[in-house]
């Protein structure tokens, strides 16, 4: 079939682009590693300096895996939120999951000044745990609402309100906190792929792969849901449970990514539109893998730029992907003006 062939070609092209970006990403950093040494590392060459081996494994590979997994997870989350809310401007954050994670981190980072001596440093593990607990708390709230409330717009409004309230609580905490803690919290919100160690990044991979695989199983139902909820019920779908499963899956994905990398914006909103545009389809069986690959590639682009644009250090990844992503959001707005209205 013609269309199947075009899908295969497009998938092949984006996978090649992803691999090229991955190699480039490993080269990029505070000291550039030549391409030949990267290939030497991959094929287990023995004449590689121990320094390079250590840098590649502990810093570059960890960063690479984190970027790819985070990009894929956020893009799939954004795609599913856009489908469930049937709103092209929905993203992984509309439910307030990342704000929950932020609140958890804020409690630990900003609150540490109150309970701990100022010299004590908050450990990475405590931040991870706090973000996870915060995200889970918001998830429970959203699930409780979505089991009771039928109307999807009400759920959206609750999600936005929860985000707002949680963000305000964080604001109040910042107001009462000291400068050092506020700064370390603000730096966390800028997002970072560098603070994840190789062993931590390996934890992210199975979580993301399992969740994406689980959600992929619901592609057929999501394709039906695109045509409206009343119609979906007539096709035998249980809308409530489909929502609960999607919300739970998306929350685990975004919660895990936010815990490790901070709240990364724009990817979840922009990448689903890029995949729809490239593959010219609304079929989730195609869009879910496409969003994973393109999301990984998108975040790698952001990572490469954030490490190479400024020679003295690393630019905040959130700022870089926002600048990258904004043109796409504008494009979506213009495109919708023509088609929907």
């Amino acid at each position: 079939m013609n269309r199947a062939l075009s899908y295969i070609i497009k998938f092949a092209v984006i996978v090649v682009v992803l691999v090229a970006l991955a190699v480039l990403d490993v080269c990029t950093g505070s000291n550039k590693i030549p391409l030949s040494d990267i290939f030497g590392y991959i094929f287990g060459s023995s004449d590689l300096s121990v320094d390079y081996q250590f840098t590649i494994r502990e810093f570059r590979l960890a960063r690479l895996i984190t970027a790819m997994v985070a990009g894929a997870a956020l893009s799939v989350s954004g795609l599913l939120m856009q489908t469930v809310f049937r709103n092209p401007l929905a993203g992984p954050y509309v439910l307030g999951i990342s704000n929950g994670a932020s609140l958890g981190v804020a409690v630990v980072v900003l609150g540490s000044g109150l309970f701990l001596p100022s010299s004590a440093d908050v450990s990475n593990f405590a931040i991870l745990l706090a973000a996870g607990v915060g995200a889970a708390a918001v998830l429970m709230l959203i699930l409780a609402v979505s089991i009771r409330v039928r109307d999807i717009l009400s759920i959206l409004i609750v999600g936005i309100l929860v985000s707002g309230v949680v963000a305000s609580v964080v604001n109040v905490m910042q107001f009462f906190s000291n400068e050092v803690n506020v700064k370390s919290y603000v730096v966390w919100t800028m997002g970072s792929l560098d603070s994840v160690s190789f062993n931590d990044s390996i934890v992210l991979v199975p979580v993301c792969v399992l969740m994406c695989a689980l959600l992929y199983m619901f592609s057929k139902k999501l394709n039906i849901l695109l045509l409206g909820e009343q119609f979906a019920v007539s096709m035998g779908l249980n809308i409530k449970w489909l929502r609960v499963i999607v919300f739970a899956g998306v929350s685990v994905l975004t919660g895990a990514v936010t815990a490790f990398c901070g709240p990364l914006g724009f990817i979840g909103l922009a990448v689903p539109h890029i995949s729809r545009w490239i593959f010219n389809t609304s079929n989730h069986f195609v869009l879910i893998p496409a969003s994973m690959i393109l999301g990984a590639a998108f975040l790698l682009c952001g990572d490469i730029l954030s490490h190479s644009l400024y020679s003295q250090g690393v630019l905040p990844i959130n700022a870089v992907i926002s600048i990258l992503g904004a043109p796409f959001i504008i494009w979506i707005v213009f495109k919708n003006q023509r088609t929907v209205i």
Partner: protein
Amino acid sequence: MMGECVLNIDGLVFGHKFPLVKEPVALSACAGDFICLVGRNGTGKTTMLNTLIGVKKPLSGQISICGVPLGKISAREKSHFISFVPSKVETVLNMRIRDLIAVGRSPYTNIFDRRTKADNAIIDEFIQKFGLSDIANSMITEISDGERQKAMICRALVQQTPIILLDEPTAFLDYFAKRRLLSDLKNIASAENRCIIFSCHDLEVATKFCSHIWLLDDGVLVQMTVDDFLNGDYFSKYQ
């Protein structure tokens, strides 16, 4: 000759929290019937349709399809018996007409929506019958309301259910398109031997084509012939 009885409604009371009908509804419909559900705004036509497709649970009473009570079968099995055409098709980004019509086969496919050769043959057959071959590869957002409606009805036929429900199919169509649509539906009902039930406010057009009227008025839902309906007091009552 009447076809076999496919839909049996017995002692049905529908509504939200409170019943919308004063008397329990007892109706039946047969294959080949082309029934127009008539009622003023707010009488509960949509609730009635929603009860039939399973969005709303009946407050009491029983609906059975081809002799099987609805409560006894799963939601998925039910989609083998009833297909539904909403009044407005959602504008879905990047969805082709053929994909939309193919959704009609999804009650029969596996979890990965893999369609067999037979499934695809049915889809192609109805695309041809409906004259949609030229626009089968167009996007939903690129075609007119009338064409979208037609595609949605084509999808319902592809689902191969004995009963097809349509919620105000004429709402977004011009006068000629309405006539054309209802005459097509009438032909489908008899040629394909399906039972088609639609709600409609365009009574002049609807009464020309439908085989029966289900009149929902004053909390009572009854079946009547088109002549009885036209000669009854429904029109004079609300002048």
